[in-house]
C-alpha cells in the first residue's frame, strides 16, 4: 500500500490535529445530555479553536421548535453548564449562527427526506462537504430505527465504497441490556454500518486521567517492571457517587448499577490497568490489548455468584448532614424493588501476568463522597527486619485518582526521626491541578473531537462490549432470578453494605477508605 502524500502545510507531530469540515447531528437534541454535556462541550471546543472551521450542529428531535428557539435554549444551557464561565458572547455568536434544529420523529421517513435536503443546503452554504457525525443521544431502542432511516434516506454512506465523504455514528451507553441484546443490537447496526463507523462512547475514556493511564504505565519503566503478580497483591477499582438516582428512576429500575457503571466504565478501567503494552498507539492496537484482558476473565458462574459478588441497595440516610431518602422511595421506583445500587465484585485475569491477583471492583450510589480511583496494592516487603520491632509496616499503594482531584499518590513506609525504629506510612502525592493549573477539558470535548477526527481509540469496540457482557450477564441473570433480597441493606451516606466489608475481611483485606 502506498503512503498518502503528506499535506504540504501540515507538520506531523507538531501542529494540532486538522479536522475535516462536517455537520454534527444530535438525535434527541431536547434531552438532558444535550443541554448539560454536549452543547457545553461544543461551545468549549469552539472556544479553544478545536472545531473545524466549516462546521454546523443540527439538533434532531420530535418536539416542534424553531432554529431560534433551539439556539436560545442551548445558549441558556451553555451559560449554566459550561466548565468555563461566564459565556463569552463573541464565541457564542460565532457558533450560534451554525446551530440549527430539525423537527421530526425518529421513524418518520418524510422527516428524514426533508432533513437530507436541509443538510445538503447547509453543505453548499457552509462548505461542510457532506461529512456527518450522527450523535444518538436517545433511548437505545431507537438506535436501529434511526440507523435504518439514515440508511434509507442515503444519509449514511457506505464505508467501503464512499471515499470522498464520511459518516460516523456516536452511540451512547448502554449498548444492550445483556449479552444477547448487545449482539442483537450489533447485528441491527451492521446491516447499514461498518464497525469503523460506530463510535460507542464511554465518557470515562475521555477523562484526562484515564488517558494518562497508558502514558503512566508505558512511559515509566519503574512501574511496569513491578506490574505483575510477583509484586502486586491486589487491585481495587472504586467508582463512588454521593448522588442518588435522581430523576433516573425508570432507567435504574431497568438497568441497575452493574449495567450503569460496571459493565462499561469500570471494565474499561480494569482493562487499561491490566493490559499488555500495545505495539503502537493506534486505535486497534490499544483495543486489541484491552480485549485480550477481558478474554482472560471467566464469566460469573454458580461457584462464584455468592463468593465473588456482593450487591446492595441504599436506604434512607444522610449525605453532607442532610437526610436523604432511600432508593425505594425515589421517583419511579417500585416500593419492593430488588435493583442494586451498589455492587462489589472480585475478578481474576487468567494470564501469565495476573495469575492469582484479585481485581476488586466496587461501585455505588449514595456513598459518602464522589470518588473514582484505581488502587494498586503491592505485596508487603519480605523478611522480618522491621516486623520484629513491631513497626507499622504497610503495603505500598499506588492510587490513581480519576475524579475528583485527578492525580496519583504512592504510599510508602518511612522511618520516624528519632532513636527508635518506628516506621510510619507516608504519601507522595501528585495532583494535576497543582502542576498543570488549568482545568482539564471535559471528557465529551475530547470524544466529540476524536470522532470528527476519526480516531476511535477512546471508544469501545464491539468485542470489548461483548466480552464485558459475557462476564457479567450470568451474574445479572442470577440476581434477577433470586427471590426478594433484604433490601435496603446500607444507609445512604455509608460505604455500602456490611456484607461487603465482611467479604473483604474474609479475603484478609479491606476496602480503602477514600
Amino acid at each position: 500500500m502506498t503512503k498518502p502524500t503528506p499535506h504540504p502545510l501540515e507538520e506531523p507531530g507538531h501542529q494540532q490535529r486538522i479536522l475535516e469540515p462536517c455537520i454534527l447531528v444530535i438525535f434527541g437534541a431536547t434531552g438532558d445530555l444535550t443541554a448539560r454535556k454536549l452543547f457545553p462541550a461544543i461551545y468549549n471546543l469552539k472556544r479553544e479553536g478545536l472545531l473545524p472551521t466549516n462546521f454546523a450542529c443540527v439538533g434532531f428531535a420530535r418536539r416542534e421548535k424553531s432554529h431560534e428557539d433551539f439556539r436560545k435554549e442551548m445558549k441558556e444551557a451553555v451559560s449554566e453548564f459550561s466548565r468555563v464561565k461566564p459565556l463569552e458572547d463573541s464565541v457564542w455568536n460565532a457558533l450560534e449562527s451554525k446551530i440549527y434544529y430539525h423537527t421530526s420523529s425518529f421513524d418518520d421517513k418524510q422527516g428524514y427526506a426533508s432533513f437530507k435536503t436541509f443538510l445538503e443546503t447547509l453543505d453548499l452554504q457552509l462548505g461542510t462537504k457532506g461529512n456527518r457525525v450522527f450523535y444518538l443521544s436517545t433511548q437505545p431502542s431507537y438506535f436501529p430505527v434511526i440507523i435504518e432511516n439514515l440508511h434509507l434516506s442515503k444519509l449514511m454512506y457506505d464505508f467501503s465504497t464512499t471515499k470522498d465523504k464520511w459518516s460516523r455514528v456516536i452511540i451512547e451507553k448502554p449498548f444492550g441490556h445483556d449479552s444477547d441484546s448487545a449482539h442483537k443490537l450489533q447485528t441491527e447496526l451492521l446491516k447499514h454500518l461498518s464497525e469503523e463507523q460506530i463510535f460507542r462512547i464511554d465518557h470515562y475514556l475521555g477523562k484526562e486521567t484515564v488517558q494518562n493511564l497508558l502514558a503512566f504505565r508505558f512511559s515509566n519503566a519503574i512501574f511496569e517492571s513491578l506490574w505483575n503478580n510477583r509484586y502486586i497483591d491486589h487491585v481495587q477499582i472504586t467508582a463512588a457517587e454521593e448522588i442518588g438516582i435522581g430523576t433516573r428512576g425508570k432507567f435504574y429500575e431497568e438497568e441497575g448499577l452493574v449495567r450503569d457503571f460496571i459493565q462499561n466504565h469500570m471494565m474499561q478501567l480494569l482493562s487499561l490497568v491490566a493490559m499488555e503494552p500495545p505495539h503502537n498507539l493506534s486505535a486497534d492496537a490499544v483495543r486489541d490489548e484491552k480485549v485480550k484482558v477481558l478474554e482472560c476473565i471467566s464469566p460469573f458462574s454458580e461457584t462464584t455468584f455468592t463468593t465473588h459478588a456482593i450487591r446492595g441497595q441504599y436506604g434512607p440516610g444522610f449525605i453532607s448532614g442532610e437526610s436523604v431518602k432511600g432508593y425505594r422511595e425515589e421517583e419511579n421506583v417500585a416500593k419492593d424493588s430488588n435493583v442494586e445500587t451498589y455492587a462489589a465484585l472480585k475478578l481474576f485475569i487468567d494470564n501469565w501476568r495476573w495469575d492469582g491477583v484479585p481485581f476488586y471492583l466496587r461501585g455505588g450510589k449514595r456513598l459518602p463522597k464522589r470518588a473514582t480511583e484505581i488502587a494498586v496494592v503491592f505485596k508487603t516487603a519480605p523478611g522480618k527486619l522491621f516486623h520484629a520491632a513491631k513497626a507499622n509496616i504497610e503495603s505500598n499503594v499506588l492510587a490513581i485518582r480519576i475524579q475528583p482531584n485527578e492525580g496519583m499518590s504512592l504510599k510508602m513506609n518511612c522511618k520516624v526521626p528519632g532513636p527508635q525504629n518506628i516506621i510510619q506510612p507516608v504519601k507522595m502525592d501528585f495532583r494535576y491541578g497543582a502542576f498543570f493549573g488549568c482545568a482539564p477539558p471535559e471528557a465529551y470535548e475530547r470524544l466529540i473531537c476524536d470522532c470528527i477526527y476519526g480516531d476511535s481509540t477512546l471508544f469501545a469496540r464491539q468485542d470489548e462490549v461483548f466480552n464485558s457482557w459475557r462476564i457479567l450477564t450470568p451474574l445479572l441473570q442470577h440476581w434477577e432470578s433470586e427471590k426478594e433480597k433484604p433490601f435496603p441493606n446500607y444507609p445512604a451516606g455509608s460505604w455500602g453494605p456490611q456484607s461487603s466489608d465482611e467479604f473483604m475481611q474474609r479475603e484478609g483485606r479491606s476496602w480503602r477508605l477514600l
Partner: protein
Amino acid sequence: MSSEYIVSPSQIEPKLTTVWDSLQGTGKTRACLFNLIIYTQNNKRVDYLYSVAQKVISKFPSRVIFVTIDEEVPKETLKTSVSVISSESELNPTACDLINILLSMQNRERAPFMILPHIITDLPVYLLWADDPSKNDPVSQKLERLATRVIFDSESTDSLLCFAKAVLNHKKSSGSDIADLNWARIEGWRQLLTETFKGADKLAALKNLSQITLHYNCLETKFFCHTKIQALYLQGWIARQMGWTFSASRKQQNSSLITYKTQDHSVQVELKPKQITAMAPGRILEVDLLCKDGELFHFSRSQEDPHIINIHHSTPTLCQLPMQFIFDRYESGQSLVKEIFHHGTSSHFFSLLQWLSSLKGLDIA
C-alpha cells in the same frame, strides 16, 4: 506576586524557603515543570518579557530565572532578589519561584555561574534569549549549553536574514532545540490555513494561488518596532512549504512586494501595513489568497475580538456563508508554551530559517 526580597546570591534558596513557609495556609502550591531562564539587556522590553513569563507560568508553572544586563548601572553591580509569582487567575492554585539577577555589563560573564546553582535538577531548561542572536554575546554559548531549548525573539533583530543565519549557527553549535516568539505568534494562522486547505480540492486551490495579500499591524510601541516579521514568516512559510522559488522583491510606497515562481506560474505577495491601535503590533490582520481562476479566500481578524478570524470563501459562481475560526486566548503565553514545551524544534520553522538564510536579494526584511 509576593513581595520582592533583595538577598545576597548565597541566600537565594534559603529566602525562597522562608517565603514559601510564610505562604502556608494560603492555598498556593509550589510547582515547577521546567526551568525558564530569560536573558536580556536592560531595555524597554523587560516589562514585556515579564508579561510573557507571567503567561507561561499561568499555563505551566516553572522556576523563572530572569537575568538582566544593564549598561547604565555601576560596573560592580550584582543584585539578586527573589519572589513568588502566581497565575493571574485566582482559580489556579499553583505558584512559582522567580529569581531576578541584575548584572552590569562588566559583570555579565558571571551570569552562568549565578544561574547554575538554581537550576532545578531533572527538569528541562528553556532559555529565552531576548537579544539579537547575531550580536556576539560571550554568555550566550555558555547558557545555550545548559538549555534543552533556546527561544529567540526575532523582534530583537534588524535583519531577519541575519537573524535566520545566526539562529542556525546557534543551533549548530549548541545542538539545542530552537523556537522564536514571532514564529509562535503565527501558530494560529498556520493552523487556520492548514485546516482551510485540507482536502484534495483545497490543495489544488492552494497550488493555483496567484496572489497573496497580507495586512499587518504596523503600530509601533515601546516593546515592538519590527512589525513586519510575522507577515514575512507567514508568507515565507507558505512559499517554502509549497516549494515556490523566490524571484524578486521590492518596496513600493505603501507596501512590500515579493514574487515567487511555481512550476507553471508566478505568485505575487504583497505585505500591506495598516495601523490599528487596539491591536498588538505586528499582528496579521487580514489575508487574501486569490487563485488563478478567481477563487478567493479572505481571512480577517475581528476588531472586536482579535481571537476571532472571519473567513469568506468564494468562487466566480459560488459564495459560502461566512465562517469563524478562533485562535487561542493567550497568544503570546499559550502559543509559546505550545512551541517550546510540547514539541521539539518545528521542522517547518527550521526549514524556513534555512530557506531565509539562503535567500539573496530579499531586501524588505
